[in-house]
């Protein structure tokens, strides 16, 4: 029995019945990881994968076997992005500054996975501190796209996306600040979910931009992602920004019809410059939704073009503050200097990579006295306008929006060196983070053999409706989604 072809639902049932052991499952996954990950041409997915840790956790699953009802993720191995605090494997955020750092506590989402019977399965590569869109900006080197190894898997959660796409695990956790789950999901041809801001606890997620960050989920299928989302969602007293909103049965949304529901097609996400082949894939997906009884309606989100500039003020500003704790005083890298200031400078310039330093500089600048009003305050005002665009469309009777996830398929490793060009790969995803609304990407076909992602965006806490559409589209596309 291999985990490669197993869904979350199958693993759960089989583990509960005892037809498959959690240990067997993780051993297969470990074998698969060993086969694809290591060496010069390996995918370089895992920055930590300790057989002993994984097998110990798998052993712990046996305790759940006696329960009458199978635990929701019983025996399911879940790969974890390296910016989520775990107890035994290091948590390094793909950065030299945290090399070897092991957290003495674990993230709320990891605890919830464990309590649901899942097995945390290693730590996955990422752009340093989640700053990037390609998983090339990691102290551990780039991760390759399992579908096309000369291509990037997207980022910043590229390692987690690749772990699922390579068939090692059925689900993985990532994190989003501007599209870091949806964009790699699109590039790797899998499902990626960014929940509503406040839906999932950030406690134990190493902060990049606190007002935008959310933990997200990758799944080989919509159902895999939905089942995992159900487990990690919900209020956490340790994260004051989580909402006390009941968690709906997302996996139950599979039975819901979308007949009579309205899909908005925001014209700003289908510019003339959009790759016609991607546009064609989106149109085909919309046609499937229409066939399912949904109404397709053109709508406008007029402030969309301001999203990238707003994002690149708000996110670096918060990052410049969030990353101040990496100062060489208490943990992580310390490089001695002449004096205190010298130690700070040596530690931080040696510990952080170029992209991280660039964003800290931008963030420090936009928060400085005399610039705050012109940049940060103004950006927050525009951010409100972007959120209002969504609110007004949803208030007008639109149930979900459908857009391409990215303007292009996965690009070649090393192809984009201009930071601004890289930033533009998030152009269709940052809006949902700025507005705090849930969004997800799923495969809707291929272009030149490379996966194309389609994105649903729903109102705040509208995950159940969003999943209903995702299930419906997945069903309607069938194998077309991967061809």
């Amino acid at each position, binding site marked *: 029995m291999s985990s490669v072809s197993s869904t979350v639902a199958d693993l759960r049932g089989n583990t509960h019945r005892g037809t498959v052991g959690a240990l067997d499952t993780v051993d297969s996954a470990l074998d698969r990881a060993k086969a694809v990950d290591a060496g010069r041409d390996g995918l370089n997915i895992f920055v930590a994968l300790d057989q002993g840790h994984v097998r110990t956790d798998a052993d712990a699953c046996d305790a759940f076997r006696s329960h009458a009802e199978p635990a929701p993720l019983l025996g399911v191995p879940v790969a974890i992005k390296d910016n989520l605090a775990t107890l035994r494997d290091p948590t390094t955020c793909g950065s030299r500054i945290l090399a070897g750092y092991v*957290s003495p506590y674990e993230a709320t989402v990891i605890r919830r996975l464990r309590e649901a019977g899942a097995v945390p399965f290693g730590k996955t590569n990422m752009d340093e501190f989640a700053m990037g869109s390609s998983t090339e900006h990691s102290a551990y080197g780039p991760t390759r796209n399992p579908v096309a190894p000369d291509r990037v898997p997207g980022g910043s959660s590229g390692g987690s996306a690749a772990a699922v796409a390579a068939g090692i695990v059925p689900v993985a956790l990532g994190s989003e600040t501007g599209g870091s789950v949806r964009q790699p999901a699109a590039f790797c041809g899998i499902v990626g979910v960014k929940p509503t801001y406040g839906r999932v606890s950030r406690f134990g997620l190493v902060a990049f931009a606190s007002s935008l960050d959310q933990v997200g989920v990758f799944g080989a299928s919509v159902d895999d992602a939905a089942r995992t989302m159900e487990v990690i969602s919900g209020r956490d007293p340790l994260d004051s920004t989580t909402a006390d909103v009941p968690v709906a049965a997302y996996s139950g949304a599979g039975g819901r019809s979308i007949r009579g529901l309205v899909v908005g097609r925001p014209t700003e996400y289908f510019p003339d410059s959009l790759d016609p082949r991607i546009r064609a894939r989106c149109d085909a997906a919309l046609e499937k939704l229409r066939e399912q009884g949904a109404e397709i309606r053109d709508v406008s989100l007029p402030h969309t073009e301001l999203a990238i500039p707003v994002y690149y003020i708000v996110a670096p500003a*918060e990052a410049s503050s969030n990353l101040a704790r990496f100062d060489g005083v208490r943990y992580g890298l310390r490089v001695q200097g002449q004096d205190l200031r010298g130690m700070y400078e040596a530690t931080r310039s040696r510990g952080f990579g170029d992209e991280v330093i660039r964003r800290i500089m931008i963030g420090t600048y936009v928060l400085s006295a005399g610039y705050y009003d012109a940049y940060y305050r103004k950006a927050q005002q525009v951010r409100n306008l972007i959120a209002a665009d969504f609110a007004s469309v949803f208030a007008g009777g639109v149930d979900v929006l459908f857009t391409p996830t990215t303007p292009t398929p996965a690009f070649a490793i090393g192809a984009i060196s201009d930071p601004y060009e890289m930033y533009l790969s998030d152009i269709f995803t940052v809006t949902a983070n700025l507005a705090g609304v849930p969004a997800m990407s799923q495969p809707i076909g291929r272009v030149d053999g490379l996966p194309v992602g389609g994105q649903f965006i729903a109102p705040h806490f509208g995950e159940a409706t969003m999943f209903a559409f995702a299930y419906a589209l997945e069903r309607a596309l069938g194998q077309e989604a991967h061809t």
Partner: protein
Amino acid sequence: MSASDVETLMRDWEMVVGLEVHVQLKTRTKAFCSCSTEYGAAPNTNVCPVCLALPGALPALNARAVELATRAALALGCEVHPQSVFARKNYFYPDLPKGYQISQFDQPLATGGQVEIGRNADGSPINVGVTRVHMEEDAGKSVHDRFPGATAIDLNRAGVPLIEIVSEPDMRSAREAGAYLRVLKQILEYMAVSDVSMEEGSLRVDANVSARRRGETKLGTKTEVKNMNSFSGVERALEMEFVRQVDVLEAGGHIDQQTMLWDGAAGQVRPSRSKEGSHDYRYFPEPDLPPLLLEKAWIERMRHDLPELPATRRGRFAEEYSLGDYDVDVLTADPQLADYYESVARASGDPKSSANWVMGEVLAQLRATGGDIGTFRVRPHDLAELLRLVRDGVVSHTAAKQIFARMVASGDPPAQIAEREGLVKVNDDAQLQGWLDDVITEMPTEAERFRAGERKLQGVLVGAVMKKSKGRADPRRLAQLLAERFGT
């Protein structure tokens, strides 16, 4: 530089002072995590992922800290806002684990208060405005003298809840600044929000001071004076800094906006080497904490449940217990002492004697032992019982003092001590007559002179009996018996 020199300068120059007071709130746990706030624990033992700023940790606001901050703000006459916003104050320092302090900036908890610090000669109040009260967290401590050549960091204090109370520049002398601080401390003690101890650092004062010529309406350039560790230190530091500024101004110089450090041992202020004034703290709203929303009804309930303020209590003590100004001031100086007095007065039904006993025996005892009224062995109902024993003639005043001493030592109730020690007043005539017989036998001359009409000898004879009875004889009955016996 003497006080009279300052007074001379103040004929031509005016001192303008505003104070920033940081007060640690008396919560069991820290502002944003559940670590203990206990003072004096071994270094770095009251710490957790949150207050150590480990990667991924997030703050969760302590509701008790909000209550105490609100109570303090209301007691200072502030308007408490239904919405306030936490902000990050960013700067690098080894004892600031996150690299920013969670504070409040442009939307503080409360604004617009006022406290009365005394009266002018014409009876009008001297008021000091309270600009704002905001919540924030404390930093850790940098220990520079523990390890040679290195600085040690103790993060036990990191994350302890603080309020910062910012005054208007309303004080015009060091004495007024001292009065403001004493009134503030008393109010905060009455509100039971803080230990308000400058020695333990639960109250810290930074002073902004400037000088201007009398008649000038524009404020001069101010300096910030730090590092004072007592109220009198604040007063002395303000005077020294004022004198320094006036010297500079009189010589035609100008004042640099800078931070001055008070050196209490040398009695001097000197410029701080760090460029505190040039910091750009890059404040922005704390994204990890939603705005602090307080319902109006909750604020009103807090206002309603506010403990009695010192001024109210002073007025009530004067009125209810007919106490003079001096007694009121002594008895209300400390809320626990006031509570103690009030319990004794109510239980004994004798406010005047209660005041005498509390201000006399009780305070003398506490002063002698350095004890605290909160843990004083003699509880109010026992002291009231003793007062009743005196009033009812069960024990004499002299015996009462002996009983009190034993109550201090043992904590036993007074009646039990009186019984055990044989200190109950004797008014049994047979016993009294016996003692009298002995005294007349022993002092025949004095007895004869008394019989002959030398009245002043009554005291001598009664005193002799009292001594013989070890204070137990009832002096009033004794005087009657003496009169009967000698037919006077």
